[in-house]
């Protein structure tokens, strides 16, 4: 039979030591809604599981008008959408954390786990990218900060080294006139994996797009930041034509595959549709008017 060691460090130092000691053999455990399923299915068989939920730094959730949001890597979804400040300032993040799984899953699932699992279809990641979030990474050697769009390197692959752990996600404070949204397409109305997803953020000024970011889920080996879609919007008047152009840029950037969840052609089409629809909501949230 296969045995697993389970560690539950109480402090950051203990945690970093544990990762330093066990290296490749270890795997972090946050909510376990990916990891436990994968272990049960025999897709992962790590000898050591290090539970990061008792580490304070992984559990913080605090907002500050100048610093923005510090979102501990192990904070479960329900705490995020239950937080007044996050609801007010980051509705785009709320979109994604309130659609992951269902109520039970949201009681455990974390945004850090969603990101570190590095699934191309992860729902929280495009929203984080659109919101310019960065990853605070620690090891016993030191700390580093990586933009979310550079964190995933392939399906299930990230920039994390064996001794490293994700501590928190840092989101800059929203600027005036900005709005964000995440939309995904699933064939059912719940309990499904995104066939495609679009996370967008916009900043409006004087009836024009001052800035915009578009990120896609499930249409490339990693979540995809589509810089072209943001560029095409910048400086344009806020109207449906602009949204359509951004949608086409997203379609062009997508590199989807065909599988049981949809054909490549269909997914590319979804990128255009979802980007356009997500932008509509983001513009509304930013106080803009599409006429």
């Amino acid at each position, binding site marked *: 039979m*296969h045995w697993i060691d389970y560690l539950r460090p109480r402090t950051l130092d203990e945690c970093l030591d544990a990762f330093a000691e066990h290296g490749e053999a270890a795997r972090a455990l946050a909510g376990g809604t990916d990891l436990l399923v994968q272990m049960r299915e025999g897709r992962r068989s790590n000898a050591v599981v290090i539970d990061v939920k008792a580490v304070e730094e992984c559990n913080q959730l605090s907002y500050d008008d100048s610093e923005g949001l510090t979102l501990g890597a192990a904070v479960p979804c329900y705490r995020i959408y239950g937080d007044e400040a996050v609801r007010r300032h980051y509705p785009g993040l709320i979109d994604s954390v309130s659609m992951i799984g269902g109520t039970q899953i949201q009681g455990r699932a974390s945004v850090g786990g969603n990101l570190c699992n590095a699934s191309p279809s992860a729902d929280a990641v495009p929203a984080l990218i659109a919101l310019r979030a960065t990853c605070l990474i620690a090891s016993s050697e030191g700390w580093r900060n990586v933009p979310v769009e550079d964190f995933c390197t392939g399906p299930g692959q990230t920039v994390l080294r064996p001794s490293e752990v994700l501590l928190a996600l840092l989101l800059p404070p929203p600027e005036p006139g900005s709005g964000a949204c995440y939309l995904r397409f699933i*064939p*059912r*109305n*719940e*309990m*499904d994996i995104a066939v495609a997803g679009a996370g967008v953020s916009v900043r409006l000024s004087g009836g024009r797009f001052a800035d915009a970011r578009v990120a896609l889920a499930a249409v490339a080996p990693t979540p995809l930041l589509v810089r072209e879609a943001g560029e095409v919007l910048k400086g344009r008047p806020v109207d449906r034509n602009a949204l359509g152009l951004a949608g086409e840029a997203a379609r062009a950037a997508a590199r989807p595959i065909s599988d049981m969840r949809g054909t490549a052609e269909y997914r590319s089409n979804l990128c255009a549709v979802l980007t356009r629809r997500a932008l509509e909501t983001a513009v509304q949230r930013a106080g803009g008017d599409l006429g």
Partner: protein
Amino acid sequence: MSSATTAKAEAAASASRRNGSGDSQDYEPNMVLATRHFDVVGTRPVRHDGTDKVTGRAIYGADLTLPDSLHGAVLRSPHAHARIRSIDTSKAEAMDGVHAVVTADDLPPAEDKQVDVGEGMTRLAYVHGNILANGKVLYQGHAIVAVAARNAHIAQEAARAIEVDYELLPSSMTAPEAMAPEAEVLHEDLFTKEFGEETARPSNIAEHFRWTLGDVGDGFGRSSVVAERTFDTATVHQGYIEPHNVTALWNHDGRLHIWCSTQGAFVVRDVTAKVLEIPVSNIKVTPLEIGGGFGGKIPVYLEPVAALLSRKTGRPVKMVMTREDVFIGTGPTAGSHVRVKVGASADGQLQALEASLAYEAGAYPGSYVAPGGMCIFAPYDCANVSVDCYDVVVNKPSCAAYRAPGAPQAAFAAEQVIDEVAERLGIDPVEFRLQNCSKEGTRRVDGPKFRRIGCEEVLRAVQDHPHWSAPLGGQNRGRGVAVGFWFNVGLESSCTLNVNTDGTVHLVEGSTDIGGTRTSIAMQAAEVLGISAEEILPEVVDTDSVGFTSVTGGSRTTFATGWAAHDAAQKIVAEMRSRAGKLWGVGPEAVEHEKGVYSCNGKSIGFRELAAKASRTGGPVSATATVKPRGVGGSFSADIVDVEVDLETGKVDILRFTAVQDVGKAVHPSYVEGQMQGGSVQGIGWALNEEYFMGDDGTMRNSSLLDYRMPTVLDLPMIDTCIVEVANPGHPFGVRGVGEANIIPPPAAIANAIRRAAGVRLQRLPMSPPAVWAAVDKARGMAA
């Protein structure tokens, strides 16, 4: 999207108001021809097994672990089609905690004979071959070796340690592929049976037969509108929530005791006896509670294997499938390839109906194409009909029954072409169906003449339903309708009633209770005895403790086991009249019985008091009845469905859904409504998203409930029900049976609704978002 959601919420609210679900409003059948008054039948008592089920006390197979049990695991084929060159179990056998290993070599060689597998016959060799692969694996998931070990983890690890050397063979996944002349043959000894005659050709076509009425050539000649289309449906699974499970104990005295989840304890007993070549009397099967079956818990998979492992080890052996095992190793129902051609004259009279159905049987013959062919045109009275059926083996799991097996695939094709003809003639689709509907005396293409049926009444109920004339509102919305027929079956049932001295009655029966049948059977006994449903205490028992009873399937349980209960109750009434007579010194013929009161010359005594005097009047009162009923009554059903299609994503939202069904007599209306709703939901899943998604290598890519997309509650509106009661003259209470006909029309009705909403006709199931989007996109491209 948001407008669709609101419309759905409104429809749900109004449907639940009409349904009175949740409140005390009693049912109002939309159309009642069963006018006899009953006291118990037609009411809604609380189900006898309710407390156990809602408190989690009911015992299912996975709950049962006997002392000293070993745990089994099965090694399944990773390949769709391969010859087994060798199997090396030595590493597994050497593992600590492993107690026994069995392969096909441990089964006695299969004699060349037929065996009854619950709802029909098949070759014993096929049953053998499916239980443990012999020489060849015919589908991914085919069981090859089983292991018994100290615990389930060791058993699984041991199964993984078994080495099988395969020689890969080309595989065929669909009927058209398997029928192609160059297709690799699955069974060298399978010769096509053509029009009843054996041929000398080994092929994947197990059987081809044809039914005809009149002359379709003539009929098409007289038609002013002829429509013809070809349809395909994907393989789908019954999707019961409880995986298959078994505990077997082969005792030292040679008696084998099996506990399992099955629709037919006697089928398990009889098939296991045939497979293991032991007398049926040596086997006792105890059916535990069952978490769904829908036809998929009729076949025997694990029972003989667990029995062999138990015989080798002398200990009880428990086996429980995983969800993946269930997907790749059990069920499913046939994928199909169906061509339908319909001709009608300008006045809307059907002139000719023609169909060719090729169904995937999976690895062994028996695809349920025959019932598909029997039902495909059953709702229509037409003089010229021709139906060809092909039963085709393919490299997928061997098919099991699934709720009206074979009929939904057929209706998906036929009801769309019928709709198209009506559309082209400019006739309302319900009017068109009414104008041509089957009635008493109409001959079905497979031979029988209908007795009293409710096809017309069901269609009239559709027409009269407020849903049919409600405004649709909104953009890209459409309303569809379709009708379906299922013949239902009778088979054999037994029932014993034991009268207790407190006036209650124990009812002993052998039909595993899937949809509330303990209660619907008890109610029929209560009606005859003139006591309440609560005073009957029904119990489903093991095969040693009740007379032979066929499967819970074919919508037969309330009909047939209920009939046995009715007959046993009549015997009790006769006995009670004689007991009352003894009290009063008169013969039984002088005692009258009405509603549980026995009387003679102004004296009377109630059932309860009389029961208390059993000992003084001659001893215990008990009666048994067995039936093999003939008067089976078929059931027609129809759906009205409103959809909204998101043209940009292809997503179909079901806004409103009304299920109409002729049930003969609704013994317990809540369970009837539950069956109608359940069948509709399964039909919706089949229509929109469910499918075995097969890779190019013939393996299933979505063998989990995450990716095999059954509808969740958020995907469904309230399913409104409309019970039609056209009494079945062949049953004491007019019962027809309700479990199956309701799954037949949903895919076709939804397809017809999509056609009106989006202007496209979907010819393949599932009508998933990518498929609908591609069809809309293609139509746009053609229009541009």
